[in-house]
């Protein structure tokens, strides 16, 4: 009987990139196919629209979400800390930003208002991530499950506010707050729903996180912590502090994005499920698609944002959202296969 063995190998970086790219292209193929089969739109129309979404600047609105969150998560994942709570951290950032913009005098001041709101947002996100971080660092409680639970808590907290005490006076019974003051809004590029400043901030984090992870002592220790915590401890760096730092950074970036969603896109606090919209979960795959490398993150965020934007283009009623989930999931399954191909090979021995 032939024996099947899976053997580790390292593809050269270029070939590995080709494999990853192949998976990405095949993913687009799956997207086209599943949309045209499940929703019954003919394949050529779908192809046209799919290519269109990759070229239209509208999807930058999603890039602004996925890029910073993916960068932050990469910091935690390099240390093999499973922060799966980006969704909740985004929501809490949104809550904090809405509070500053709506209920403090700062909201009425230009420039200072948005800056204060974004600062509060990243702080809120960081604190939300810190609770599971502390439990992991001091009591060794599995962080994957606690961060997941914190997502649901954040949803409920946000919903409580918009259905209850924060519900606006001019919203005719909708579960949302009043609009934030004009001074706090981040202005859109004409004709699109994103702000140039948010884009600049999002892109600015690419070199910052890159330099932090690869050129500083703490960053190197963080990367080392993933493969060998003991070695890092022996080099004189506290593992506990590293864990707390990793959670703080990833939470702060997710929170910042949540705040930006309020100032730039929604302009009011809406129910938690609408703010997060599953983007916190998708960001996890953005980080892994780029192999946790900050320099490649813009590419992977671009790809995922375009796929994410696709569902806005395919307006086909109540099935749009589940179908989008389904095909984005399939694309990520391909990604897992492509990781396998570039890291292992199958050997059949007689």
């Amino acid at each position: 009987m032939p024996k099947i063995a899976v053997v580790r190998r390292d593809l050269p970086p270029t070939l590995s990139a080709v494999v990853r790219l192949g998976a990405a292209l095949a993913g687009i193929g799956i997207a086209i196919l599943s949309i045209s089969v499940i929703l019954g739109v003919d394949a050529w129309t779908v192809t046209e629209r799919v290519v269109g979404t990759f070229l239209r600047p509208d999807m930058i609105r999603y890039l602004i979400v996925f890029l910073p969150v993916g960068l932050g998560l990469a910091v935690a994942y390099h240390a093999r800390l499973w922060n799966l709570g980006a969704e909740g951290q985004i929501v809490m950032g949104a809550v904090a930003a809405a509070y500053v913009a709506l209920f403090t005098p700062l909201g009425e001041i230009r420039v200072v208002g948005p800056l204060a709101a974004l600062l509060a947002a990243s702080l809120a996100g960081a604190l939300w991530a810190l609770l599971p971080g502390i439990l992991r660092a001091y009591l060794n409680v599995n962080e994957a499950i606690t961060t997941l639970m914190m997502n649901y808590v954040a949803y409920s907290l946000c919903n409580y506010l918009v259905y209850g005490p924060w519900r606006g006076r001019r919203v005719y019974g909708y579960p949302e707050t009043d609009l934030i003051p004009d001074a706090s809004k981040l202005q859109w590029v004409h004709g699109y729903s994103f702000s140039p400043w948010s884009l600049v901030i999002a892109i600015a984090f690419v070199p910052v996180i890159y330099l932090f992870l690869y050129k500083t002592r703490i960053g190197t220790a963080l990367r080392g912590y993933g493969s060998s915590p003991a070695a890092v401890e022996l080099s004189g760096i506290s593992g506990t502090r590293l864990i707390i730092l990793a959670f703080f950074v990833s939470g702060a970036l997710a929170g910042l994005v949540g705040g930006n969603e309020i100032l730039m896109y929604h302009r009011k606090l809406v129910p938690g499920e609408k703010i997060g919209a599953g983007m916190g979960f998708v960001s996890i795959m953005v980080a892994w698609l780029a192999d946790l490398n900050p320099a490649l993150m813009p590419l992977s965020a671009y790809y995922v944002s375009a796929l994410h934007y696709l569902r806005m283009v395919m307006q086909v009623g109540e099935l749009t959202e589940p179908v989008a989930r389904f095909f984005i999931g399939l694309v990520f399954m391909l990604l897992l296969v492509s990781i396998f191909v570039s890291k292992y090979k199958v050997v059949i021995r007689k």
Partner: protein
Amino acid sequence: MIVEELFESFFLFLLLAAVGDIIVERSGVLNLGIDGFITLIFALCYSATIAYGPVASLALVLVAGAIYALLIALFVNLLHSSHVLTGLVTNMVFYGLSVLIGYWGLDLATERGVPRTLSISTPLDWRTVLALSILAVSATWVFLYRTRIGTAVRACGYNPRSADYLGVNVWRTRLLSLVLGYIIIALGGYVYVLFYSKAWTPYIGMGYGFLALALAISSLWHPLLITLPTVIFSYLLRSLYVYQLEYGISQYILSMIPYLASIVFITAVIASPLGKKLPIPKALGEIYYKEERAA
């Protein structure tokens, strides 16, 4: 009566899901995919019952459990994928698929002119529930702690490399416990749809899988210890709306209680002396790479 309140179909569902999860995680597979599966199985069970009746639906649901287990095993065993990513990705795919399947059932009900709510003539009474849950818990305990295969399963979760040295086939053992675990979880989903909800709405069941996961952790993956937290949580979850009606507490505050409570519960158990004593699946989430044995 209080027993009737505690032992009803929702409790049985949660217990079966948690027990199935224990079997899976005892073999070292971190089982985040359970949430997508529960969402899927609710939709599948509902639609299949409308289309083919309750008996065929049961068969279909169990087969679906086995197939889902095979899919997870393909990724975590053969493709050496990270358990967390595998779980998240399968969740995403099956959340989406569940809605498509559920709408198929709803449309079919409208087409045939049958009511959208399932009508089951014999509800589960508390004695049946109690008997079934004792059976499930004790059978799982016997399987894990008193059989050869069960010992192998626990060994794979504790230290797969040593288990391999002793002649245990880690891949095969993990596959076996995945299939067994998911069949039990599927059974739980069947109980939920036919005896508890009797209806389907989009994304119903989302989050219950993670709750079952939390229950498994808080009992330190021990099938006998799981009964108590499950009784408490199922009672808590069902009685939340009573507090809303009686004391006027916002439902949004109430709906965060189960999740906060499970975090507190897990932390308390892990920090307690019990948490340091009981052997837990240490290698949970570890990708087992066979060819590295010699290193």
